[in-house]
């Protein structure tokens, strides 16, 4: 019986997570012992969804941005959104399973198991979508290319926008993505007077120890926090720059005289990329001021950039100006 196997797998899966899930898993265990017939797919998918909501930092999340809001986009309510979303998807795909939950922090979680006109929904590979109503960001995990068009249409209709486009931001951690795009981290704005305090290192607090370059140090610290936020910053892991430029080095004529592009990909990886970049600038390893190529990660909320020859900045491929 497929649901029994699935539920046993999920039971083992769940029993290593937090207290709420353990309680629910116990409940499920009771269900199994009392009567196997009463346990059905609905309970299992519900539990799986709760698990994902409590542990959002798994898999790979991608950000999308809604654009061209219609006049009544701000009046969209939760029930209206739910109805329209479900109605559209049920209308275009015969077999589909959609579950929606509203979390306490105003996030709407949507779990979609896709089928098609002939086969039942596949609950082993569901797509998860997170949207905060009245923001223009949608976070998507585990979406196949063939279903993308349906999901995008449904989102655009349900939120009363004109279009949706790729946000060029992908992370493992949904929390980091949300914190970055919804600006839930400690930002620092340029100002002439107050300087943010550095973390007071206990090593250098002895009165006999004096620093010659403390002004420069503070200035570098300020500059780095303006570009990358104050710690703790959202835990991004990578930033990728795809180069479509011509080689401009000196000396190596075989490379610089070519007509075609010198293609390359520059990839920054770290367990916490923004913290690393901030430390590079604050400690003087990287010369200031911070290049806009790097500060664009926080200023524009992206971690994938295509750099072309047109100018020193980033490509304007998907550069919807952030509010």
């Amino acid at each position, binding site marked *: 019986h497929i649901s029994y196997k699935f539920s046993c797998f999920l039971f083992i899966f769940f029993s290593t997570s937090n207290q709420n899930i353990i309680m629910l898993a116990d409940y499920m265990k009771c269900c199994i012992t009392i009567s196997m017939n009463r346990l059905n797919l609905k309970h299992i998918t519900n539990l799986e969804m709760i698990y994902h909501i409590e542990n959002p930092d798994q898999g790979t999340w991608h950000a999308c941005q809604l654009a061209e809001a219609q006049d009544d986009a701000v009046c969209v309510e939760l029930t209206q959104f739910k109805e329209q979303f479900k109605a559209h998807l049920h209308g275009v795909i015969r077999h589909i399973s959609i579950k929606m939950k509203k979390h306490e922090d105003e996030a709407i979680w949507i779990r979609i198991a896709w089928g098609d006109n002939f086969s039942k929904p596949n609950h082993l590979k569901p797509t998860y979508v997170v949207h905060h109503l009245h923001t223009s960001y949608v976070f998507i995990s585990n979406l196949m290319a063939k279903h993308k068009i349906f999901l995008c249409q449904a989102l655009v209709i349900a939120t009363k926008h004109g279009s949706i486009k790729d946000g060029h931001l992908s992370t493992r951690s949904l929390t980091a993505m949300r914190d970055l795009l919804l600006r839930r981290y400690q930002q620092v704005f340029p100002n002439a007077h107050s300087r943010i305090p550095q973390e007071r290192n206990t090593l*250098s607090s002895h009165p*006999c*120890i004096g620093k010659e370059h403390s002004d420069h140090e503070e200035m570098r610290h300020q500059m780095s926090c303006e570009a990358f936020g104050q710690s703790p910053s959202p835990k991004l892991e990578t930033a990728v720059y795809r180069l479509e430029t011509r080689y401009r080095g000196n000396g190596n004529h075989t490379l610089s005289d070519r007509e075609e592009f010198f293609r390359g990909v520059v990839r920054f990886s770290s367990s916490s990329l923004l913290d690393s970049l901030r430390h590079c600038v604050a400690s003087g390893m990287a010369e200031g001021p911070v290049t806009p190529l790097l500060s664009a990660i926080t200023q524009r909320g992206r971690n994938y950039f295509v750099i072309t020859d047109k100018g020193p900045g980033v490509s304007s491929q998907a550069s919807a100006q952030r509010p």
Partner: protein
Amino acid sequence: MALLTPYSKVPELNTATVLLVENEEELQSKLANALVRNENDFNVNVRLARKLPLPVENKETRPRIDLIVFIVNLLSERSLQSVESSLAHLHSDCFLGKVCFLVTDGRCVLRHVTLSVSQTADGVNAAAVRLLNILKVSAGMSPIATTALYLSSLTRCSVTSELEED
């Protein structure tokens, strides 16, 4: 170009000041800590800098510097380049016994290295003790009648046996 001169200021009573110059700012804070927390018969002040020239704003408040230590990290070429460019800002009189070079993270044994230190806690403490001895002489506080010039000829190479074990 303002040069750092050795005798342009009046020394303070029973006080010696050492300037640690390091591009990476890694070892210098640990070393500074070890220097001031050591039991000394005289007051030790430590100034930390990344490179020379020192900022003009601090000129009035800065005490007389008795010893300048350049810290070079052998793993980084930039460290050595920074020290070389800083040397241009030193008055030539400083080289008569007021300048010392400290290398760290070195795996190979160098001939004329003045002081070599590993970044462990023991290494830092040992280096601090040696620096204090040199500082005592440079500041003129040594009870034995040595001057800094004689000291530099006496301590040709203090590569310790720990390094040779590597």
